[in-house]
């Protein structure tokens, strides 16, 4: 199976007067698993459809496996695609669904049989080959749709929100299956989702998109740890990142001040020289630590509500100036509403954003 890279150069796509993508560049390495993540309407599906050749581009180039396929038919691009609604051919058996495209393309019978058997075995579909889609569960249907993509032996596999129609448990199962498939095939995969868990678990790299623009293209770890702007910070992570408005104190030792609370910034890596403009401090709930009350950097906060989540609890607190935020804490800790906590905000886990532009400082 060939592994193709994908290269997108100054891509523009619009419908009528509406610009969906404007001058977008993206390079996907061969064998890479790239996730396009973003809210609905951010252009991620449009980008995927353009790579597939299902919508026309206004300008720009799309190269797959080093070949310019900007104006090639979908079938000639060396791609395969899996859809959100499965898009199986309803009156055909599983076997026929998977083999029909190859048959029409004139692939020899024994080759079709070989590929079919291989894909069916990989996706545990062997028992289901003679069933029709309406006799299958949602998870099985999506496995068939993946199987139909696999038999094409494509260089690039495209997934358009493939798990969004499934319930939570099936979604988790199939997610693992797709990850295993990628490890086994080593094929290039581009995967569109609005689910940040899917993105973080599956991706080699994530491209977070908003308004037709890639906001950040990085590894899941960096997207999570060092979001480049407030949009990325708030879109990725559940429970969501806390944002505390305030400003950076100028007095010698860098610190962030919000009302009467002071947060040490000793160890925070600034991207540029810090200014004293209004800023927003971001910290993920699991990074806030409970500390001894005599810790010089401790910030006092009052517990307002405790949300047990099984493995741990989400504690909702308020700072002295009334700013609400949450932290993750041991589920067994005897915390109640009204308790006062001393908290530490480890500087290396913080994110600072400019209040106006929302860019990381």
């Amino acid at each position, binding site marked *: 199976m060939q592994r193709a890279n994908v290269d997108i150069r100054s891509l523009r796509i619009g419908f009528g007067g509406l610009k969906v993508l404007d001058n977008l560049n993206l390079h996907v390495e061969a064998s890479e698993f790239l996730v396009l993540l973003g809210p609905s309407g951010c252009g991620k599906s449009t980008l995927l*459809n353009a790579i*597939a*050749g*299902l919508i026309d581009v206004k300008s720009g180039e799309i190269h797959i496996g080093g070949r310019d396929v900007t104006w090639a*038919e*979908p*079938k*000639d691009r060396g*791609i*395969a*695609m899996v*859809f*959100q*609604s*499965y*898009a*199986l*051919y*309803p*009156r*055909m058996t599983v076997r026929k669904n998977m083999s*029909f*495209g190859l048959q*029409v*393309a004139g692939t020899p019978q024994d080759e079709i049989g070989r590929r079919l058997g291989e894909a069916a075995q990989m996706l545990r579909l062997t028992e289901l080959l003679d069933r029709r889609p*309406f006799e299958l569960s949602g998870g099985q249907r999506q496995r068939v749709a993946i199987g*139909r993509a696999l038999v*094409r032996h494509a260089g690039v596999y495209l997934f358009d929100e493939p798990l969004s129609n499934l319930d939570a448990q099936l979604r988790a199962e199939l997610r693992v299956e797709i990850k295993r498939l990628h490890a086994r095939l080593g094929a290039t995969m581009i995967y569109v989702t609005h689910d940040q868990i899917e993105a973080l678990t599956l991706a080699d790299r994530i491209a977070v998109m908003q308004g037709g623009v890639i906001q950040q293209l990085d590894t899941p770890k960096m997207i999570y740890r060092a979001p480049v702007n407030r949009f990325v910070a708030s879109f990725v992570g559940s429970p969501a990142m806390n944002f505390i408005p305030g400003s950076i104190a100028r007095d010698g030792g860098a610190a962030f001040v919000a009302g009467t609370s002071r947060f040490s910034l000793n160890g925070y890596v600034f991207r540029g020289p810090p200014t004293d403009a209004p800023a927003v401090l971001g910290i993920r709930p699991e990074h806030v630590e409970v500390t001894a009350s005599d810790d010089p950097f401790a910030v006092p906060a009052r517990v307002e509500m405790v949300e047990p989540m099984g493995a741990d609890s989400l504690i909702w607190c308020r700072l002295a100036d009334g700013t609400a935020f949450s932290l993750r804490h041991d589920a067994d800790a005897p915390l109640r509403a009204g308790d006062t906590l001393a908290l530490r905000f480890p500087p290396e886990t913080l994110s600072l954003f400019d209040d106006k532009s929302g860019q990381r400082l």
Partner: protein
Amino acid sequence: MRLSLSSRLSVVLALLPALMVMIVVYIGATGWTVWMSLTNSRMLPNNNFVGLRQYESLFGNDRWITSVHNVVIYGVLFVSLALAVGFLLAVAIDQRVRAEDTIRSIYLYPYSMSFVVTGLVWQWLLNPSLGIQHVLRSWGFAGATFDWIVRPERAIYCLVVAGVWQASGLVMAIMLAGLRGIDDEIWKAARIDGLPKWRVYASIVIPMMGASFATAAVLLSTAVVRLYDLSVAMTNGGPGIASEVPAKFVMDHLFERANIGLATAAATTMLVTVIAVVAPYLYWRARKGDIR
């Protein structure tokens, strides 16, 4: 739910007219028709039971045999052609054409005309000395011949043409609704699979449109059974008896030829035929639990 006596009474009163119509008009009239077919009634109904004698003479009647023959030809051709033409029109409109609304209205327009008007229009068009043949000859195609309506062995096909022209628009509307119900992602998947468009229609879309085809076929079939006015308006059963149809046979014998016994025997035969076709289908649907 328990209803008080007065509200129960009002329910009964409200349903009574419909129930009376049902019992008297449909079941009553049908029963009376069947009974009349077993008597020797001529101009006025009587109750002289003669067994199946009317049926014997019915199936010895050339005009009836021709009528049955014609309705079979008409039924098969009309239903299949109207389905085919209607489907193709719907496919044509589904290609995201401009002015779709206008074209759709034009296609549907013939359906707004009664069979009598349709019949008259086509009678003129097909009339050799007035219509298409005349126009072609006056343009200089001296050999042009289009005289099916005056040729006994072809007249019934003229009825088919007019019927298909009238009904295709309706089929188009039903089919278009069916086509629009097909998920866009199926089309995308087919494009990725590299299937040519005709192949997608033939192998994927048509099998998915069973419900649309069934609806259209049922509507067209009822039009076949009650085929009467088209024959009256277009050919009046002619030339000779070449384009007679069963419903016309019934009407003529009932009101013109004063032979109630024979007319009701023909009507009963039509009813039995329809039941014989529909009953196994209904039984099969019920058994299947109606999976689309």
